[in-house]
């Protein structure tokens, strides 16, 4: 039977898109000192809104506002009261969930299904979880009365804009710090609505400040001497620059950087769920732990890859606002070009390319799900982070070889294991040098579960008790704990 889904788009109206957005400093929305930029819908290349951009003096003003709020209000407020503000913010995020989801999909290009079912609920969960910590920090194992650090400067990426903002603001505020947040240049809108939500929650002015802008604003914020702690989510190159910037200052740093995650599929994998997990990791979820390598045991490689291609071919690529879209738009033209370039390098280096026959929209930044086989470990597609719907497939023969190949990268963010044999699963999990290991599942996140990378994938963790350490004064020698 010829049966296809008719378009089922979410209405753009729900996003309450405004013609222009402003900086949020000291509790007020204000114009920025730099030339405003335009935020573009990557699915249509249309301008969504004009967004004010911070200047260096705006950075200074915001840091000062955060400092004042820290000194006069926030650091003195009992944890129980801070908790209530965070609970309020979490509730308003839930109340405005649909609006935030549509706005996120418009601005980022990710499918509405993902922003609706993952990003926004997870953001609310982050705030909710951390709210409860605010008056229980003494029980977190960081000493009986752990102290906040001061002003936290948070610079975040484009892949999970609202969720990452919440994952910084939640623990920072719970621990008694104030925040200056710089969202990614291409995805500032939900962070600015989150600012509005802080206003609705009557959060004291200056506790949260949001400064849209490009890399320059981020660099100025990171280098600002009034910032006591920097939390960064983004690419490894910039992370290294920030670590250099902070070298010798004694200011605290956590980094959540890139990855080159591998899914390892053994011959006794629950094959249909493995295919689903690999497809989700490689093509559907847009990034936080994108898993763009597959290591498959030779004895099931053909069978698994047949199923994988069949499943990937069924993915629907297109309008992010359509509720039936599985794979949305690539966030920006630059990123699309980089993906195209890396895939071309895969061809040039001799890997076999398979591209999903799915139709692509005429306009916008889209890339069809792509699988490379005959990949050798030295190829660029096997070593560099792709950040697009491209999967590089390598094979292995023994568990030892699988672990060696999975670990053969300077990154160490995440990895997946697919096997029905419990002891092997644990054996592999133990040996993988990665901050998150998913066994027979993939891409699960929770505010109670610490997330972050080994080696060049990051410093420190987000989430759980471990994540609080990033926002508390805990590292000194001499009896603090």
């Amino acid at each position, binding site marked *: 039977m010829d049966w296809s889904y008719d378009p089922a788009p979410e209405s753009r109206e729900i996003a309450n898109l405004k013609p222009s957005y402003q900086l949020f400093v000291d509790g007020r929305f204000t114009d920025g000192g730099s030339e405003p930029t335009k935020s573009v819908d990557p699915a249509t290349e249309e301008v969504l809104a004009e967004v004010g951009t911070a200047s260096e003096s705006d950075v200074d003003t915001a840091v000062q506002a955060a400092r004042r709020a820290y000194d006069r209000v926030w650091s003195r407020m009992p944890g129980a009261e801070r908790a209530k503000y965070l609970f309020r913010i979490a509730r308003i995020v839930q109340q405005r969930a649909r609006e935030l989801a549509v706005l996120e999909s418009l601005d980022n290009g990710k499918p509405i299904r993902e922003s609706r079912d993952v990003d926004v609920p997870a953001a609310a*969960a982050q705030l909710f979880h951390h709210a409860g910590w605010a008056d229980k920090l003494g029980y977190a*194992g960081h*000493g009986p009365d752990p102290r906040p650090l001061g002003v936290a400067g948070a610079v975040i990426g484009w892949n999970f804009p609202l969720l990452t903002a919440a994952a910084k603001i939640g623990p920072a505020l719970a621990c008694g710090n104030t925040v200056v947040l710089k969202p990614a240049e291409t995805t500032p809108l939900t962070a600015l609505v989150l600012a509005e939500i802080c206003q609705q929650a009557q959060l004291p002015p200056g506790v949260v400040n949001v400064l849209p802008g490009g890399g320059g604003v981020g660099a100025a914020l990171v280098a600002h001497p009034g910032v006591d702690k920097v939390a960064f989510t983004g690419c*490894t190159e910039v*992370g*290294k*620059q920030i*670590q*250099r910037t*902070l*070298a*010798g*200052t*004694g200011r605290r740093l956590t*980094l959540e*950087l890139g990855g080159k995650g591998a899914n390892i599929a053994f011959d006794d994998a629950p094959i249909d769920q493995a295919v689903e997990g690999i497809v989700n990791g490689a093509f559907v979820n847009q990034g936080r732990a994108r898993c763009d390598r597959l290591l498959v045991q030779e004895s099931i490689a053909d069978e698994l890859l047949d199923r994988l291609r069949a499943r990937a071919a069924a993915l629907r690529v297109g309008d992010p606002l359509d509720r039936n879209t599985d794979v949305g738009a690539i966030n920006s033209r630059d990123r699309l070009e980089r993906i195209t370039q890396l895939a071309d390098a895969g061809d040039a280096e001799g890997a076999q390319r398979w591209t999903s026959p799915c139709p692509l929209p005429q306009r916008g930044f889209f890339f069809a799900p792509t699988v490379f086989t005959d990949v050798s470990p030295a190829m660029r597609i096997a070593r560099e982070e792709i950040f697009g719907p491209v999967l590089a497939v390598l094979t292995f023969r023994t568990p030892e070889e699988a672990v060696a190949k999975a670990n053969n990268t*300077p990154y160490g963010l995440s990895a997946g294991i697919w096997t029905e044999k419990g002891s092997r*699963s644990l054996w592999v*999990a133990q040996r993988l040098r*990665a*901050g*998150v*290991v*998913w*066994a*027979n*599942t993939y891409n*699960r996140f*929770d505010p*109670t*579960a*610490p*997330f*972050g990378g*080994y*080696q*060049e*994938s*990051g*410093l420190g*963790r987000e989430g*759980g*008790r*471990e994540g609080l*350490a990033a926002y508390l004064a*805990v*590292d*000194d*020698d*001499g*009896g*603090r*704990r």
Partner: protein
Amino acid sequence: MPSRIAVPKTYKLYLGGEFGRSESGRSYPVTDPRGRFLANAAQASRKDARDAVVAARRAFGPWWGATAYNRGQVLLRVAEVMEGRREQFATELAAAEGWALRRAPAMVDAAIDRWVWYAGWTDKIATVFGAANPVAGPYFCLTIPEPTGVVAVLAPQTSSLLGLVSVLAPVIAAGNTAVVVASQNRPLPAVTLSEVLATSDVPSGVVNVLTGRTAELAPWLAAHDDVNALDLCGAPAAIRADLEATAAGTVKRVRSAPAAEPDWTRPPDTGRLRSFVEAKTVWHPVGT
């Protein structure tokens, strides 16, 4: 009749379980704080540092793979063997740090007790720092602290034994392996400690001890791709920022130097244990 002529020790580097001179053939004179000659120490080169990292990397898998109980027994054994050489350490420490001999035994005892403290930690790190995460879904989710890997330790410059033990023991208790640059001007107790390590079940390469110029060796360790973490405790103030910036090349975990050398006789906290572990979160579905 003249008293017996003593047989002085040759102080060597401790790399991969072996004692040897620097590959560069260099040595430097070590004096006490009043300038009296004590001995010549090997002056390690960047190649010695490189060899130490290779040895530490090789030792890492087995050391991390050993049970926590086993690591605890090894650390306790270090304390036991030190106990048997208390007098030697006291004499050497008094000379190195320029104290009256009667003050030294207390320092040695504190160093021995520090090993005992950390010996007891090895099988509690996961209990205390790990977590069973109550995630919102049908998953069993555990967070387990694991050693960071190869840690380069710039030992405290002043406290040549207690300070050294206070920074080294937590590193290896957590399952890391260490490349230690001993106090530049007071390296001799570190070499004697190496002799203890070599005879007390610590596997080869788990601890590697370099003596020489801290400022010469540290940049090589900070830049080495196969070093995972750096403890700047004894780094000369002038180069700390540079070392930290260099370490950013591979996003090393850096533990900053304290503003002034801490009073190592104070009871330790868990900060140093935590500095060199990585949290790994493992998810598994719960279903039939």
